[in-house]
């Protein structure tokens, strides 16, 4: 038994943790007890998606990925994005979707159908997968492809259709060694959103950081590859380790001060050339930065709403500060078309993500936002969530009914379980 938690560290959970190689995965199915089993990647999901309290949480041993010259990588699900980048970059290719950390695994990326700062132009990871190899709850091995129902249920399926053993992923040519990043500093949310909309169409990568304490003023960053075509090794530096602290260093006061200082950073009004790590994975620079929120941890609230409900972005920022919350920098992204994943999060519109220490009354504010996000046809991201209610989940993910049909076929005995599933009632149980 080990005590595990999500990246937000709000809940800890006792699970049997085991590491198996992909070849032993079938044997692990047979050993599942009454509380079922789950495959866990690197535990970069914030809430309870990768927890299975009282049951088994397996991790798959990483395997060496193989890059094919036509720009395709074949890799085991336990392989981290860091390892994938180390393998692909020297051959002139990069990963098509780069979430905000390099520590996640390929399996976790597929199970959450992750997105990057290029969602508007390039979609989520589902759009780049040629094949996903799945071991289902009945011990059957599937090689699923786009268009298959098993593919649509597994990509974004939060690990509940079976064990993803590996995948074939199309790559993006690394057009340069570095990124040319242009920043614009803007005084309010309306201007930030207008600028981000333009930036996301103009440049492959675009994101905005917004300050909830100051009417959503923010910095819009857009980036494209630059320099000679990349053929170099990938060696992200990591210098700092955050210490464990007895109390959260993030309070309304410090969050306000940090956001203001960030907004004023001189780099935030010019164009510069930077590395992949500092543009895509700035937070990875400090190891275990999540410990800075103290023993009670923190929540990340990420939602997407269609263009017609764009005002919910500003409403959310306003309500979170008004309620005495301490929203750290909000991250705003522009989303394009949804993938075929039946439980996938990204859909056209605006996505906002904020990190929040659990202050009193926060639950009620977030419940209120959930209701409006759901009514607008939006959704909360399951990979970040630790508190959504089962009822609103159904409204946010209307394709869950189709998903359940495929899921019960793939896991007729209900072997795969997670705390997220227990909380939201994802899997239909007799």
């Amino acid at each position, binding site marked *: *038994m080990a005590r595990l938690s999500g990246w*937000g560290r*709000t*809940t800890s*959970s*006792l*699970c049997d943790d085991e590491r198996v190689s992909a070849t032993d995965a079938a044997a692990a199915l047979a050993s599942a007890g*009454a*509380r079922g089993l789950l495959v866990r990647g690197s535990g970069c999901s914030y*809430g*309870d998606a990768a927890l299975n*309290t*009282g049951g088994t949480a397996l991790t798959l041993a990483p395997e060496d990925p193989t890059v094919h010259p036509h720009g395709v990588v074949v890799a085991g699900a336990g392989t981290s994005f860091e390892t994938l980048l180390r393998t692909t970059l020297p051959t002139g290719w990069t990963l098509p979707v780069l979430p905000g950390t390099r520590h996640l695994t390929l399996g976790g990326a597929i199970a959450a159908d992750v997105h990057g700062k290029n969602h508007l132009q390039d979609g989520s990871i589902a759009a780049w997968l040629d094949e996903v190899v799945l071991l289902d709850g009945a011990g059957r091995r599937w090689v699923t492809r786009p268009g298959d129902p098993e593919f649509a249920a597994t990509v974004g399926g939060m690990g509940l259709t079976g064990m993803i053993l590996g995948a074939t992923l199309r790559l993006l040519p690394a057009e340069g060694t570095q990124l040319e990043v242009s920043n614009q500093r803007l005084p309010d949310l309306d201007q930030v959103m207008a600028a981000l909309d333009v930036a996301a169409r103009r440049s492959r990568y675009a994101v905005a950081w917004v300050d909830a304490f100051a009417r959503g003023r923010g910095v819009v960053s857009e980036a494209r590859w630059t320099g000679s075509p990349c053929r170099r090794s990938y060696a992200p530096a990591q210098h700092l380790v955050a210490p464990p602290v007895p109390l959260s260093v993030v309070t309304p006061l410090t969050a306000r001060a940090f956001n203001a200082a960030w907004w004023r950073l001189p780099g935030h009004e010019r164009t510069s050339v930077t590395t992949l790590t500092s543009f895509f994975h700035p937070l990875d620079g400090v190891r275990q930065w999540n410990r800075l929120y103290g023993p009670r*941890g923190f*929540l990340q609230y990420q939602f997407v709403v269609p263009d017609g409900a764009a005002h919910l972005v500003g409403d959310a920022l306003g309500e979170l500060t008004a309620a005495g919350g301490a929203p750290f920098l909000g991250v705003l992204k522009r989303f394009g078309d949804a993938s075929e994943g039946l439980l996938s999060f990204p859909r056209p519109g605006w996505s906002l993500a904020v990190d929040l220490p*659990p202050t009193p009354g*926060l*639950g009620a504010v*977030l*419940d209120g936002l959930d209701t409006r996000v759901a009514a607008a046809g939006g959704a909360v991201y399951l990979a970040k*969530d*630790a*508190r959504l*209610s*089962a*009822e609103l989940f159904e409204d946010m993910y209307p394709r869950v009914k189709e998903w359940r049909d495929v899921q019960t076929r793939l896991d007729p005995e209900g072997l795969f379980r997670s*705390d997220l599933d*227990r*909380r939201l009632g994802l899997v239909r149980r007799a």
Partner: protein
Amino acid sequence: MRDGTGRWGRVLVLGGTSELGLAVVDALDLQPRAEVLLAGRDLDALAAAPLPDGVRRTCLHWDATSPGAAAAVTDAATQGGDLDLVVAAAGILGLGAHEDAGLAAEVLMTNTAGLIEALVTLAGRLRSQRHGTVVVLSSVAAVRPRRSNYVYGASKAGLDAFAQGLADDLHSTGVRVLVVRPGFVHGRMTAGLPAAPMATSPEDVGRAVRLALDRGRSTVWVPAALRWVAPVLTFVPRPIWRRLDL
């Protein structure tokens, strides 16, 4: 399961009409659509018990004194999912039990035997869930029985010893136990009795339990000062204790 903001999802109250049990539920931070399961003898009274807005109510038949009731209530309560919290609130005062053998047996069967049987069964489930919390409503009377109702004191002493042992037994299984030792609480159980010093209200008990749960405590006295007063009472010499009209 408690969610990321610490809110409770499924709560079982043994003694579902208990004033203190319901005051605990009222004080808790519950998920907006939390399920509260009320177990007791009188289904109509359970259906009418006051619960916070929005929560889903499930009423379960359970009589602490009837054989086999523990297994049945455990099965029924765990059918719909994991239990996050069990509040053991059933109990009778049994005034005059020291002169009425039948009543004495009923007090022990309710407060001690029946409740312990239910808690043993439920603890087994919680242990395999690897999470959950048990709140046991003991009493100061468990520490210092009063001459006026020492059968009750004996029944609570038995329950209290069980709860302490359970807490140790469940240590590091992910399941926690909170022993609550209220003094005199104004309410239905004590209606018509002269109030003892340091009397409190059901709401005080609810608040104290919530705070103790949030802080991860294993014992809470209500009011808090009893924690120091009660042990002192146990040192009061017997001749004096006998003469105190408590």
